[in-house]
């Protein structure tokens, strides 16, 4: 006997993600999901962003890692609320799912919060598949990873709203070609907002910081 089902495999996750997105919008809190390879510089980039907006925007961070609390410890030195999600008990998942994000986000004191940043598990494949409930997906690429990543991981660049090219201070040493990366980004997703910067010195950050301010404004309008 055949039974028709016609149900999306990730329907449960997608529905919960949509609820989370609506809920945080109603609270005037912007949720950003930051994705990128291990070593792209996600944690340092988050640190620099939080420091640049200190006194103006209150942040909280959800840290996703398979194991360890190294990143959470680094970020809590900034005096902000941080929750670590370890995916080890969930089959060592290489991504974060909407239900874990919702629980983690609701553990913050939402009264004094403006922006929640999710640092997803370092990976350009799996996190692209699972909607976290964030309002904006941002992918960070560092110059040592080369210019070809958008072509190798198109889904990640298709689901993202913005891309950060990090470690641009290494551009000359690596012969990094900005024209090629720009062309590859256009080929995969022309609508991507692009930021070229380095977290080491803060060069190029002002454009990104303005974007964060603006996204928060949009959520609250």
């Amino acid at each position, binding site marked *: 006997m055949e039974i028709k089902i016609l149900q999306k*495999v990730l329907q449960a*996750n997608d529905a919960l993600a949509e609820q989370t997105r609506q809920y945080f919008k109603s609270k005037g809190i912007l949720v950003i999901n930051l994705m990128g390879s291990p070593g792209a510089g996600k944690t340092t980039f988050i640190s620099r962003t939080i420091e640049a907006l200190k006194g103006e925007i209150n942040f909280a961070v959800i840290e996703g890692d398979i194991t360890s609390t190294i990143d959470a410890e680094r970020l809590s030195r900034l005096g902000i609320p941080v929750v670590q999600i370890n995916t080890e008990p969930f089959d060592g*998942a*290489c991504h974060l799912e909407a239900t874990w994000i919702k629980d983690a986000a609701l553990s913050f004191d939402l009264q004094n919060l403006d922006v929640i940043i999710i640092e997803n598990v370092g990976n350009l494949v799996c996190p692209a598949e699972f909607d976290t409930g964030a309002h904006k997906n941002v992918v960070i690429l560092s110059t040592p990873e080369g210019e070809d990543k958008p072509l190798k991981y198109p889904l990640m660049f298709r689901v993202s709203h913005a891309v950060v090219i990090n470690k641009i201070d290494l551009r000359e040493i690596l012969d990094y070609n900005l024209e090629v990366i720009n062309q590859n980004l256009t080929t995969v997703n*022309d609508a991507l907002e692009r930021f070229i910067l380095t977290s080491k010195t803060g060069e190029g950050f002002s454009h990104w910081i303005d974007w964060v301010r603006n996204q928060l404004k949009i959520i609250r309008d």
Partner: protein
Amino acid sequence: MHELAIAKNIMDIVQEHIPAQGDTVTIVRLTLGKMSGVVPEALQFCFENMIPGTPLEGAKLAIEEVPARAFCMECQREFEIETVSFLCPFCNSPSIKLLSGREMLVNSIEIEEK
């Protein structure tokens, strides 16, 4: 290996649809878009390793792949995305609308009644 989480989601959906206790599932039909980001072989492997001891034991996972198709907003033509380029192959425009390719759907199941 997010295929493990995907296989688990498939199993949960299938188990919710088994009509009566003791019924077993012989086939699970899945629709998978070319752009879904799922490796069919990895999904098969995870599925096969998960089903023993459940009503799905021995079930076949039949995957139907759907090509990625898009529509160009500029020149109004439809095309298949075969490479990683999301530009229109006719006019090179980046304003395209994806028509298919991201599907990940439990289509139907075949049940053997007790």
